[in-house]
């Protein structure tokens, strides 16, 4: 690696409608290095990537590419200047071959009639793959390849148009261990060919394996630059979260020792879970499950609720093994599930608030002939609207017209109507305002105080610290730790969740 700067950013600022996404970022990239960008969600990593690929223009600041100041007009301009981003979603066409994909829109030799010379195409493609030591046939149909191989082809496609700087955004998402190894191998051979890479990942173990340096972002600023060979996990984590947060608690922590066990998983696993999990939660407890994006929180929550096929182990409710074939079966056990995505999983946006609230308990508004009584429906919905403090308090409004926080209150109200004994909440406060958050915390503590069992799945660790009694940490699909809330800090949770210790 040499000291030549291929790219440097000076004083980059960018705001969206008064919100500063980037607040004076200085960043430099040396030719031929693999440079990690680290930071929590919202720290400014994606905005920076979008500025480098020409999606956004900086408000102020300077971009120097190979020493010359440049303006990156749009993604096509970025590609022309040799900057290519490899996003999580692939841009390959499954029905075409590897060679056709690599040169799509950029066919090497074309006859006067616009027909590309097939033989030339495959020869060029083979040469390319060989140069970077990639063992994939040019004739393979992309749809038949694994995710890891596809991502490699995506990289080769970028290199085929002479990209010198590759932006890899969470490239290992969904990859198997072997595929990750292959990817890292190819990254190493690219490095030998002097290709420069920016690597974005939540997983510190990966960053330690493949990166030379790292820049940490927090609140739109670069707050630290590290040589990976000399850096430690605690150093990086501290830089990412900045200060130690002393969270205000919504409810004194309880210890559930001696409380009756309500829900217990014994080596429980479903079709969408990568590892079996074991845990138990007692009556009146609020237990948090945390982990970073992709750690398997939602998968676990949905599996407990019977939305996915069980493949192993046991789930016990009140000490008795149960088997759910669909969410319908959970009703008999007084279980409720607040899904992660309220718009696509929780609500029917085109229906009114009252219709949404009564949907799972429609029998409650039937008369003896099985006809629905709208007076009963309104009464139930209004009572629930008051309990969750719906704003505006009109249950006839379309759910789609409510704010995010109030939509979430409707989803909660929908399930509280059944007075569940066990309630699972998946990211219950994502994207909602502070007032609505407080309401939702209030409802959760209310339920726990009434002797219900509450399981919260959230990647917001401060939230869990402020409301839970106990927190279980998930990483790459398995439970890697458990903390009583009194012993836990954001730092200690994040360290476990980032996978520094969970290298399988």
């Amino acid at each position: 690696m040499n000291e030549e700067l291929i790219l440097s950013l000076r004083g980059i600022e960018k705001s969206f409608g008064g919100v500063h996404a980037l607040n004076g970022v200085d960043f430099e990239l040396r030719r031929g290095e693999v440079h990690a960008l680290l930071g929590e969600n919202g720290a400014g990593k994606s905005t920076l990537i979008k500025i480098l690929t020409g999606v956004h223009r900086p408000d102020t600041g300077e971009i120097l590419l190979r020493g010359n100041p440049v303006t990156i007009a749009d993604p096509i301009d970025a590609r022309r200047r040799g900057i290519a981003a490899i996003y999580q979603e692939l841009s390959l066409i499954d029905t075409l071959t590897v060679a056709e994909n690599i040169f799509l829109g950029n066919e090497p030799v074309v006859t006067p009639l616009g027909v590309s010379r097939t033989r030339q195409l495959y020869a060029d493609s083979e040469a390319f793959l060989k140069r970077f030591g990639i063992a994939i046939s040019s004739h393979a149909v992309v749809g038949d390849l694994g995710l890891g191989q596809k991502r490699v082809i995506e990289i080769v496609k970028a290199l085929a148009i002479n990209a010198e700087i590759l932006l890899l955004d969470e490239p290992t998402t969904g990859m198997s261990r072997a595929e990750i190894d292959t990817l890292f191998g190819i990254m190493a051979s690219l490095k030998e060919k002097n290709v420069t890479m920016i690597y974005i990942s939540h997983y510190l173990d990966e960053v330690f394996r493949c990166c030379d340096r790292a820049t940490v972002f927090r609140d739109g600023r670069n707050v630290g630059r590290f040589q990976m060979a000399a850096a430690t996990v605690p150093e990086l984590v501290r830089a990412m979260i900045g200060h130690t947060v002393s969270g205000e608690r919504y409810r004194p922590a309880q210890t559930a020792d001696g409380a009756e066990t309500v829900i217990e998983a014994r080596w429980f696993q479903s079709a969408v879970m990568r590892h079996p999990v074991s845990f138990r939660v007692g009556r009146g407890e609020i237990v948090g499950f945390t982990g970073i994006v992709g750690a398997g929180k939602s998968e676990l929550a949905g599996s407990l609720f019977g939305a996915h096929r069980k493949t192993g182990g046991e789930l016990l409710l009140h000490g008795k093994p149960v088997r759910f074939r669909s969410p319908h079966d959970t009703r008999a056990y007084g279980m409720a599930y607040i899904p992660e995505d309220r718009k696509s999983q929780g609500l029917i946006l085109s229906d009114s608030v009252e219709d949404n609230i009564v949907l799972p308990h429609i029998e409650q508004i039937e008369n003896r002939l099985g006809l629905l009584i709208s007076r009963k429906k309104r009464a139930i919905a209004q009572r629930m609207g008051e309990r969750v403090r719906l704003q505006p308090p009109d249950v006839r409004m379309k759910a789609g017209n409510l704010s995010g926080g109030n939509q979430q209150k409707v989803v909660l109200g929908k399930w509280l109507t059944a007075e569940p004994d066990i309630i699972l909440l998946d990211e219950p406060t994502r994207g909602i305002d502070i007032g609505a958050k407080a309401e939702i915390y209030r409802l959760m503590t209310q339920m726990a105080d009434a002797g219900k069992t509450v399981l919260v799945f959230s990647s917001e660790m401060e939230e869990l610290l402020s409301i839970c009694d106990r927190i279980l940490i998930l990483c790459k699909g398995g439970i890697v730790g458990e903390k009583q809330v009194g012993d836990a800090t954001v730092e200690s949770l994040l360290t476990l969740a980032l996978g520094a210790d969970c290298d399988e």
Partner: protein
Amino acid sequence: MNNQTRTLGRKFMRFLRGELGLLLILLLLCVVFAYVSPYFMVERNLLNITRQVSIVLTVAMGMLCVILSGEIDLSVGSTAALCGVAAAWGMKTTGNIWLGIGLALGLGLLVGIINGTLVVYARIPSFIVTLATMGILRGVCMVWTNGKPISNLPESFSVLGAGYVLNIIPVATVVSLLLVAVFYVMLQRTKHGTYIKAIGANREAATLSAIHVDRYKVLVFVAAGLMCAIGGLITTSKLLSAQPTANVGLEMDVLSGVILGGASLSGGIGTVVGTLLGSLTIGVINNGLNLLNVSSYYQEIVKGIIIIFAVVIKRNKATQ
């Protein structure tokens, strides 16, 4: 008292806003046909329209359920024809009208179960399943009858398709309106209707709301199959003969009626009243063009154009 009349008034306004556009189109068509043909605005003819439309209307009730749940059934015409043939065959071989009717209903039920099972459990899109069964069932009709009609059915069977209540209202009209009432109550006033609409509007939210999505998806196809059986019985009764080529293109008229009625092909949206008005509109167009002696070649063209116009007008109304 004052309050009560006000809520009643509000309900009426909501009804108008929902179906007003279609009602206006229907009335406009009636005015146009009454102006150009002296035979249109005659009591006999108007009642005749309701009889002609009864088959489309009956089958449209089943189709509405299927569409509300986010699926489609293209096999309705073939199913109706097959059930008609089955009824005629049953009556001929046993001499008992009721056995023939039972056979038709049973077959309709069976077709519904087959369509529903293939969609839900074999996970084949309903468009493909019913496109296939549309061909298969028509083929079964042909093989069963050797391509020839089954005629000379018991005279008393003609009551359903050609008889009158009080010497003036066609029996088929009464039967279809009764079915409309049943479906109105089922879809607007019971949990089954709510569930079917919820499944079509947001399948995942419905699943997580502890609704048996798969069971209801099969049920809507069963409803469609049964309604086809009744439609086929009316067709057969009208002619006292079962034609293996009966009800060809019925799916087009039924779908047109349901779509005109404001149902969304992506599911979740649609009403019984809208479908009733939509089917009547199709019936009025068919009848009016016949009275004007428009050749059947042109009829198809005119019908298609009117449907496109009606949907555009209705959508503009809705977005305003």
